[in-house]
């Protein structure tokens, strides 16, 4: 279980997160909605250790050591590595950060790419991919690290309505395999449809569903 307890964060005088608490279990799709500027992105950045916070705690029961941080993040702009092919985007962190050998990394990456419908695009570079394809490479790259929880920053922002549903289905697949999914979005319709837990972030966080 990932438990956020009374998390607070300010940038200078501006209080961005004020005593936010919620819980996500593996298999959940927790979606947090809210208008721009209420700290959704800050929250997700705290969860994925890109941002420090002032007070409160983030407890992850699956964490086996202090060093380990089992929360992945799929960025809104994907942040693929432009000089690496789709396949290398996935294998590079596996080989370097996880110490996997080339052959195993390649096998794992190919399996993930296949499951996300990316077969045939292994050698393509990010600039050659469509927005939806880039997103799926970014998802494959994040999943390859075997995160216990995976965060998505505005996953529908770059997509048309048809692709929105395909991302929703991908989220369901990921959750079904036992990963906890945490999404922030301002897309209420998408949030209602695909969430198992729905929160609205304003000055505080309210459970909607």
């Amino acid at each position, binding site marked *: 279980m990932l438990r956020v307890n009374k998390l607070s964060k300010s940038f200078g005088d501006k209080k961005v997160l004020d005593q936010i608490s919620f819980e996500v279990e593996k298999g959940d799709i927790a979606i947090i909605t809210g208008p721009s500027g209420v700290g959704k992105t800050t929250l997700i950045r705290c969860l*994925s250790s890109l941002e420090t916070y002032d007070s409160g705690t983030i407890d992850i029961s699956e964490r086996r050591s202090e060093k380990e*941080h089992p929360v992945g993040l799929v*960025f809104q702009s994907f*942040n693929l*590595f*432009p*000089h690496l092919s789709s396949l290398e985007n996935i294998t590079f*962190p596996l080989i*370097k*950060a996880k110490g996997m050998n080339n052959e195993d990394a390649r096998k794992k990456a190919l399996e993930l790419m296949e499951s996300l419908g990316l077969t045939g695009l292994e050698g393509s570079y990010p600039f050659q991919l469509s927005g939806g394809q880039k997103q799926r490479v970014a998802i494959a790259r994040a999943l390859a690290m075997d995160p216990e929880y995976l965060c998505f920053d505005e996953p529908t922002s770059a997509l048309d309505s048809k692709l929105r549903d395909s991302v929703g289905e991908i989220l369901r697949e990921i959750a079904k395999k036992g990963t906890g999914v945490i999404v922030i979005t301002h897309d209420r319709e998408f949030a209602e449809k695909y969430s198992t837990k729905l929160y609205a972030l304003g000055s505080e966080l309210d459970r909607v569903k």
Partner: protein
Amino acid sequence: MDYLLSMAPLMLQGLRTTLWLFFLTALGSIPLGMLVCILRLSKYTPLQRAMQLYILLMRGTPLLLQLIFIFFGLPIIGIVINRESAALIAFILNYAAYFAEIFRGGILSIDQGQYEASTVLGLSKIQTFFGIILPQVVKRVLPPGGNELITLVKDTSLAYILGLGDVLRASRTLTNQQASLIPLFLAGAIYLVLVSAVTFGLKKAETKFEYYR
């Protein structure tokens, strides 16, 4: 033809000097520039300041003055260096400052998202720098770095001040001996050929990086 051949020994000797000064300066100043750049970008303020001062001194005073200072000035405080080493040291120190700023521009132009993605994926700082950032920086600094190398080809002629016989000095000697302008044209042609070769090499290198955008 005989006339041109009579100039060959001196010009070839000059070409040798120009070439070694060019290659050794490039070989020394590019890695040193990268080091200065990394120290300049460090979070440790005294290091940052020291590098800023170094860059200011090197870019803010003429290379000619730096050459004179190292060869003629340092012996006064007991440091004596031969001409070749003095020229090389001055050139490397000077060009490293320019390369450092070019590299800094390249590194700062890389999107913050590349660092964040690397962090989230568990890559160390060293892995991120060498695997993700540096390859992208190389592509971006090729055009300004190439500019610098082309300037270096021609700047080697400043070594005449230390009495090194480079192409320009050789051609001036010949001009005086023969009361002819032809050696000067010949020198110009040699620089043009050298710069063309460097330009060709740079173009090749840029093509190598065209596989991604």
